[in-house]
């Protein structure tokens, strides 16, 4: 009974901390949906995958969200047709590379500036690398949940449809544009039915409705994720994880596992890491600070609202391997 009570308290504590950030993420997502013209948004996004990865990874400076708030925003970016590299860069880097996290890390590790520097450099590098890898896949749709694909701009499907039907003898209303290519009127009108062009009153209704629906859906997933994280924390003694090892490699694995299970919010995780600073290697602390914001039990469910399981495995595997390798180099050669 006591264990159950502890698990319940822990569960509530995770939610009390995470839901305000989810609210912030949903707010940004709804603003993007309703007030940002998706065509303009896509027009300003860099087409180059390397640039896109950097822009996405650094966008967290504009949208300070932690790992609960980044999911609705990244999903919205994909739905609005932003390049893959931008959306995935944002998903992975925004929880770390933003002013709030910088401030809290600086407060916690004031005496170890190398930890602050490495945390941001490694997170940025890993996020950019993974988003580059994903942008090799030209059409991301097979990796995404059907409901996300459903909302993505139809342009590509439209092109493939046009290619399969005869170029001659098409019915419908056409507009003879200056480009010389006749433009199909009825299809394009539906495709670009962007909410950003609607009157303000409609926008407000849509804005609210979207916030409520995203809060309901992602909130429920967050509740489940937090319940799993709390249960594991209460029923698996922490000593088991920490006893995994103190060596240069084993300490990193232990801290990555701990980061996944504890599911602590990225805005405050540096204070938690600080309590291990005297007993764990610098590399393993960095592994905690870099890997935790990207992947944790509480957030896995949220990410499943974007990706199919196959893509989740790629994301998880790449992030884990890259974190392990970079922090191992730090353990062996830097500190």
């Amino acid at each position: 009974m006591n264990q159950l009570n502890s698990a319940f308290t822990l569960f509530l504590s995770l939610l009390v901390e995470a839901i305000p950030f989810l609210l912030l993420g949903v707010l940004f997502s709804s603003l993007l949906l309703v007030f940002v013209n998706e065509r303009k948004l896509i027009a300003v996004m860099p087409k180059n995958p390397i640039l896109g990865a950097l822009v996405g990874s650094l966008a967290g400076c504009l949208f300070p969200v932690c790992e609960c708030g980044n999911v609705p925003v990244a999903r919205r970016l994909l739905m609005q047709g932003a390049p893959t590299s931008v959306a995935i860069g944002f998903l992975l880097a925004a929880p770390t590379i933003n002013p709030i996290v910088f401030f809290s890390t600086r407060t916690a590790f004031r005496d170890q500036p190398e930890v602050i520097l490495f945390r941001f450099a490694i997170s940025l590098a890993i996020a950019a690398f993974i988003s580059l890898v994903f942008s090799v896949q030209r059409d991301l749709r097979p990796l995404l949940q059907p409901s996300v694909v459903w909302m993505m701009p139809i342009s590509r499907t439209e092109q493939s449809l046009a290619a399969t039907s005869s170029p001659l003898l098409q019915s419908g209303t056409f507009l003879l544009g200056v480009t010389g290519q006749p433009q199909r009127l009825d299809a394009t009108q539906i495709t670009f039915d962007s909410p950003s062009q609607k009157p303000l009153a409609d926008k407000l209704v849509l804005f609210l409705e979207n916030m409520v629906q995203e809060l309901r859906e992602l909130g429920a997933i967050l509740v489940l994720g937090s319940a799993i994280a709390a249960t594991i924390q209460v029923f698996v003694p922490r000593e088991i994880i920490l006893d995994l090892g103190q060596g240069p490699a084993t300490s990193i694995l232990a801290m990555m596992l701990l980061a996944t299970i504890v599911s602590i919010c990225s805005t405050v995780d540096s204070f938690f890491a600080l309590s291990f600073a005297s007993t764990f290697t610098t590399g393993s602390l960095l592994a905690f600070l870099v890997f935790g914001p990207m992947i944790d039990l509480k957030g896995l469910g949220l990410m499943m609202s974007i990706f199919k399981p196959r893509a989740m495995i790629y994301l998880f595997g790449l992030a884990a391997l890259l974190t392990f390798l970079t922090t191992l180099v730090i353990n062996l050669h830097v500190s």
Partner: protein
Amino acid sequence: MSASSFFQNRERNRRHRNRRSPFQQWLEVLAIGSWGGLFLKYWLTGKLYLLIHPNYFGLTVVGGIGLIVVALLRLLYLFRGQSASVVGGAQHLNLFPPLISSLLLLVTAIAGLMVEPRAFASPMAAQRGLGESSALTRTRPQAFRSQTVPEDRSLIDWVRTLNVYPEPDAYTGQKVKVQGFVTYPSVSSGLGDRYLGITRFVITCCAADVYPVSLPVKLTQNRAAYPLDRWFEVEGRMITETLGGKRQLVIEAKSLKSIPEPKNPYDY
């Protein structure tokens, strides 16, 4: 099917998927509002102290108010019969059907309103490692006051002081007055039944990261009079003893006064 009717069908389907029954729309507003209410209730009743470090209270309070505002505004539109499904565009996911996710949120919020969160006790302390090492994990004390009168030091002050200068003899004879709950040291620590641990949890951010700090207390009688998890104020003086083959600082208790569990059981 021609391309244009394909897109029209698709658009129609999208709107159809988006349409939820009025009952479901009310339910989701209720679910979101109840979480907002729960956050504010924890804040007003002081239970938030059990869940999160006071530095982050603002986050929870603003979050709770935000949730209530969203729910109220949506309620206003529901009363007016306005729904964005008419406007189109909002989509939604199928990891859970809307009804299930609303119910899940609502049921957990109601559980939160009915079941009071409780401060962690001795089993959690044992689980989180009530050893010597756990008290030593923090590198630097956040505040170190060497001028402090010894009996003004809290339990965590003592543990931090001891971290900075771990020679027990340096403190022998100093007066002690600390508060905490009772834990029984494990058999392997070499402490008999005339010893107990006076313990407190330290919180850095949320309850997921609490860790226990503890000092052994030497009693004049059997510890059975001091049940596990009960809160006491221990007064006495510091002595050095060799316990389990290790020299360590022990509180020699002069008196143990039973106190109620503090509103804020954690230390910082």
